């Protein structure tokens, strides 16, 4: 069964053009090359569309790393 991290990794790998990308929960824009203010809205939009969820600004402003993103997604799904 695909985990939330797997889903995020799949989206990041496709949009950042990094096949084989492995994301850790501690990863952030500081550690993932290409995850920056240029690509961030596209990454977030792809996650919203794939999982049929929406984030508001306060939620987006809480995302420091992959762990925060996973928690936020799962809080909307379960």
């Amino acid at each position: 069964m695909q985990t939330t991290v797997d889903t995020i990794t799949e989206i990041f790998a496709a949009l950042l053009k990094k096949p084989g990308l492995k994301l850790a929960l501690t990863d952030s824009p500081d550690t993932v090359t290409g995850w920056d203010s240029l690509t961030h809205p596209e990454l977030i939009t792809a996650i919203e569309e794939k999982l049929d969820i929406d984030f508001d600004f306060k939620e987006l402003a809480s995302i420091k790393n992959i762990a925060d993103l996973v928690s936020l997604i799962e809080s909307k799904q379960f």
Partner: protein
Amino acid sequence: MQMQPGIQIRNAADSDIGFVIEAIVQAEKGSANSISYCKLFNINESEFRTVLKKILEEKIDNFEFSLANFKIAEVNGILAGTYGAWLEGEHGISSGILKISALKTFLKKENIVHYKSSASIVNEISIRRQAGTIQFESIYIVEQFRGNHIGSMLVQSLLSDMNKKYPDVKAAHVQLIKQNSVSLQAHQNYGFEIVEEKSSVNPAILNFYQGNTRVLMQIKLK
């Protein structure tokens, strides 16, 4: 810098949101007589002002559209100027990510798609903001009050507050377009010195800014 008689510096309040929006818009126009965000996202000035209001009302701190950043100068009770500053990356998130998250929330998808194609041009002269430094953005002095050292007073007031709140911070930064000579000279008068420059030979950069060179200016605090 001595406080001039009749001039009062205070923190921005909810009732100042309109004035802060004006400051951000006028500061943008000072760089190019146009608003780079409008070109980046393919929106008009009215749409930009509407989005700014929504963002400022969210009251998220530590990026350039945070109401809590701003100090307001009043002359005999009349709004005369404002300037904003924040500590970069205080909560582990860069101000750039916060800003694009805010704009993504309140703009349409087509505006974000447009941004992707145009941002690569302005990124040619972007300078990464350094975590743990004080960042200044969006100075605006109402024309009739210019020449009264209000800009210096705002800078000193912001630095004084930041120094109390973050005593270990070593530097304050501001980024400007070098060809904006009025703002460059003003910031040199406030005590900032150029420490980095980034230029582009791409003529398309002039669609967004009045010049092709961005400078990072610094005041060393320690």
